[in-house]
């Protein structure tokens, strides 16, 4: 990479916004774009690859690891087509949600940290991270990854959705406090 390109990479910023409530995460991403005010600042949304959209077309349960592998596959797509190009051009990109949401789900169901870290190791390092609190809607009418996780794993396994949401939120708050 030439010197000019390296300088541009340094200027690119990756802002991660995570949370169990996808609507709140999206709203925070819109607000972040407004407040950053940088030209060409973009947002990388969950399921940009359409993996979970396509999953909706087929019935069947899925384990937490399967769901996380799909989350990672979608994130790999977003990293390749949305996040890495933005950083390479020195732009600011808001990833909503990003790595922490997947990690929180994994920790909530008891998967070990090292497996989760290995799974998501390809994701570019974020410049700054924010966690959005869940609204009441997230407990009653989940959207995004939480909806998929509830329908594909929690419900068939007899796990209470509200408890899963709260446990994920607890894990999300942890790194934010550090």
């Amino acid at each position: 990479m030439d010197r000019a390109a390296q300088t541009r990479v340094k200027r690119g910023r990756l802002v991660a916004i995570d949370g169990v409530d996808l609507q709140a995460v999206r709203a925070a991403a819109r607000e972040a774009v407004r407040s950053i005010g940088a030209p060409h600042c973009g947002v990388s949304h969950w399921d940009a690859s359409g993996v979970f959209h396509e999953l909706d077309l087929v019935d069947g349960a899925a384990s937490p690891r399967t769901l996380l592998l799909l989350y990672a596959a979608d994130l790999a797509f977003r990293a390749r087509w949305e996040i890495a190009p933005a950083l390479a051009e020195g732009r600011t990109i808001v990833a909503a949600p990003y790595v922490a949401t997947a990690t929180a789900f994994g920790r909530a169901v008891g998967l070990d940290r090292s497996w989760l870290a290995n799974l998501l190791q390809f994701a570019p390092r974020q410049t700054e991270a924010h966690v959005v609190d869940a609204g009441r809607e997230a407990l009653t009418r989940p959207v995004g990854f939480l909806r998929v996780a509830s329908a594909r794993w929690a419900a068939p396994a007899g796990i209470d959705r509200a408890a899963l949401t709260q446990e994920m939120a607890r894990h999300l708050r942890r790194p934010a406090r550090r």
Partner: protein
Amino acid sequence: MLDQIPDVAACRARVRRHFKGRTRRGLLIAFEGPDGSGKTTQRKLFKTWLVAEGYDVVTTKWNSSDLIKPIIKGRKAARALSPQEFSLLHVADFRCRMDAEVLPALWDDKIVIADRFLFTGLARDVARGLDFDHVLKLYQPLVWPDMVFYFSVTPATSRMRVAADRVPNFYEAGQDVTDVEDAVESYHRFITRIIREYDSLADIFNFTTVNAEEGIAEQHRRIRDLFREGARRPWSPWNVEAFAEWIALHKRG
């Protein structure tokens, strides 16, 4: 962790109790090898023989889960997969089949024949440039097959058999990483890398190598003999974690 998920230590103890002292336990037998090595022919012959011998047999095939296969198929057709995405989606398919087909069958003392197992993913992903340890860890928690039959052929034989009646498809030929326009030439280069990885895996994981250049009947006889020897092996405690997690997260009664 969620209170509603059973304690993993208790699940481990339950798994050990379940498999302890079983006289005719389930077995996991993997058929591995490059395309054109004849493993599917041998797998079918072997299954027919096992059923005739009175075994309850389940077959699981690579990239075949109802949930993930359509996702992979569409992306392959669009040539839209990076090596990382290719790897992750195939691990997802593998995990789905482990949870829904392999682990339940082994728990119920059936014989599972896997037409390709995680070693296919490892060989292909590493041939695409991914890190071996990274890919192996994606497949955790692992269930080690009781036997792995590795059908060994040269790259030239694989190329000759595959290209005899069709043109290899884009990902099969590794054209996403070779940058070679001619599919058959790309296949030859890519399968050479894959076979190199398979040969390493055969050493590391102690596969039983079957010379797939031999006649079909000779190979089948050898597989029967090897199965008779291997079927008396004790259950591997390495598999406890995979079963314990399956019980914990699926709340099996």
